[in-house]
């Protein structure tokens, strides 16, 4: 490892070499294993992966004085090549139509493309190391840095690892008939553990005929014997037993007279951690402009 050992401090070229190495490794993994199968990360695999990731970060941090690479990873100079790689891959994603199947090989399923996943993982690791490094100094003025770097890690890691546990179902409820079966994106039938009865679907329109309001007056019956009556409309979901129920669709052929309403049922056990991360990032951004921006220089 003479190459990586000599000539301290490392320059950004080393960072780009690591980025290149990750891209290359990613391509190899893509060829050998095929695209990333996020479904495999369902509970408790995601918990194990999380523990392994945190352990790896902990070990790297503990060895930072012994292994120069780990110390280097905490600095802004290591973030630049990583962010450049992530930005370029994200731009490529924005230029290629993202579709479930087919399209441009590899690039049209960017979220399942190993190089993309590896680069973002690398970004999470160095951001976590940097946050840890500042956290242990334990000073008030380190808080903005910690909020920004830890916030992004908490939000993105829990969003990614939690994605396999997220249930997203569609339930079609006809007036006066409680329905307990729902369909997932892949067409499979599920029983989410609650039944929904539609009392009335409402569609209001503006004078020019464009839709103004969609709403479903429903009763939700749960397995533990509760029944909750409420109105679900766009931007106003109903929360019952850990499920969030959203207005999704209706019979467009009948419009205001639609005999059924399609409801979307979402359950995301990791959402609290995503929110914690997001609020840390919001607080971090506030600190970014109030405390982290350089002091104005006047002539």
């Amino acid at each position, binding site marked *: 490892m003479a190459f990586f050992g000599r000539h301290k401090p490392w320059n950004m070229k080393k960072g780009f070499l690591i980025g290149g190495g990750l891209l290359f490794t990613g391509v190899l993994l893509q060829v050998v294993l095929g695209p990333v199968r996020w479904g495999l990360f369902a509970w408790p695999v995601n918990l194990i992966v999380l523990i392994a990731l945190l352990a790896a970060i902990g070990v790297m941090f503990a060895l930072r004085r012994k292994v120069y690479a780990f110390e280097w990873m905490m600095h802004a100079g290591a*973030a630049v090549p990583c962010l450049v790689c992530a930005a370029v891959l994200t731009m490529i994603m924005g230029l290629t139509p993202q579709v479930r199947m087919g399209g441009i090989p590899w690039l049209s399923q960017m979220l399942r493309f190993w190089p993309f996943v590896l680069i973002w993982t690398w970004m999470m690791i160095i951001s976590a190391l940097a946050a840890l490094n500042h956290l242990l100094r334990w000073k008030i003025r380190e808080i903005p840095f910690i909020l920004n770097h830890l916030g992004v890690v908490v939000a993105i890691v829990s969003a990614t690892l939690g994605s396999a546990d997220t249930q997203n179902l569609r339930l079609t409820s006809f007036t006066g008939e409680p329905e307990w079966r729902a369909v997932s994106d892949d067409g499979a039938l599920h029983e989410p553990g609650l039944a929904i009865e539609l009392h009335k679907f409402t569609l209001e329109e503006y004078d020019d005929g464009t839709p103004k309001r969609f709403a479903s007056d429903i009763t939700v019956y749960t397995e533990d014997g509760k029944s909750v009556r409420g109105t679900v409309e766009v931007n106003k979901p109903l929360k019952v037993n850990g499920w969030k129920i959203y207005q999704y669709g209706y019979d467009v052929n009948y419009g205001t007279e639609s005999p059924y309403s399609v409801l979307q049922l979402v359950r995301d056990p990791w959402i609290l951690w*995503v929110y914690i991360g997001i609020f840390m990032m919001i607080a971090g*951004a506030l600190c*970014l402009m109030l405390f982290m921006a350089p002091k104005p220089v006047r002539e």
Partner: protein
Amino acid sequence: MSWDSFIWFALGGVLLWASGAFFAWKERKALVYVCTLAGIAVFFAFILGMWISLERPPLRTMGETRLWYSFFLPVAGIIVFSRWRYKWILSFSTLLSFVFICVNLFKPDIHSKSLMPALQSPWFAPHVIVYMFSYALLGAATVMAIYMLIRKKDATEKEINLTDNLVYVGLAFLTFGMLFGALWAKEAWGTYWAWDPKETWAAATWLCYLVYLHLRKAKPAEWETACAILLVSFICLQICWWGINYLPSAQGLSIHTYNVK
């Protein structure tokens, strides 16, 4: 209030801003503030009037977002002036604001009253308004970057400091806009981030500005590279704002395209 009366408010606003810019060159500080703030008030009166008569915040169409952009440019301009005393900044913000006003006058978009249900949310206004303010600041940072790159000489500490500040504050507002959008999306669609083309470009833009920030920390002497990154970032920002309406990869996939009929 309707778009028919826009020209009068726009005229009043631009004349007052231009006077403010003129007094900045003449170093008459009090008059700079009076004129610029009066112009901002006149222009905001129109936005407020539209808000009331439309019975919704004027944020839905491309033309309506341009309205806010024209409003925030002088706001950003006067803030920069108050901190750095640049004589030219108000001339620049007035000119750019004028350009966007002209676009609205000569190429108005569909300005209907209806607001589709997905947009009826308390998150709608903050999401778009903080984005427009961020775009105004990052636009000013881009002009600074071009100015420093063209001169090729060593940029002064003051110029680099101003650019850094514009990016720090602009990026903070960009982050607010993105995260407010995520919180809103969760309430509207059940997912906070769906990698919709607009979201993908928002992420790319955000990463680009983070590159700038970290490069400035790691290599303060390489300001020319940092300026070049600002140009790339601003291109991403434009793709995110309106470019995706024309991008083949986003056709039929984005829920964020303007003026859906």
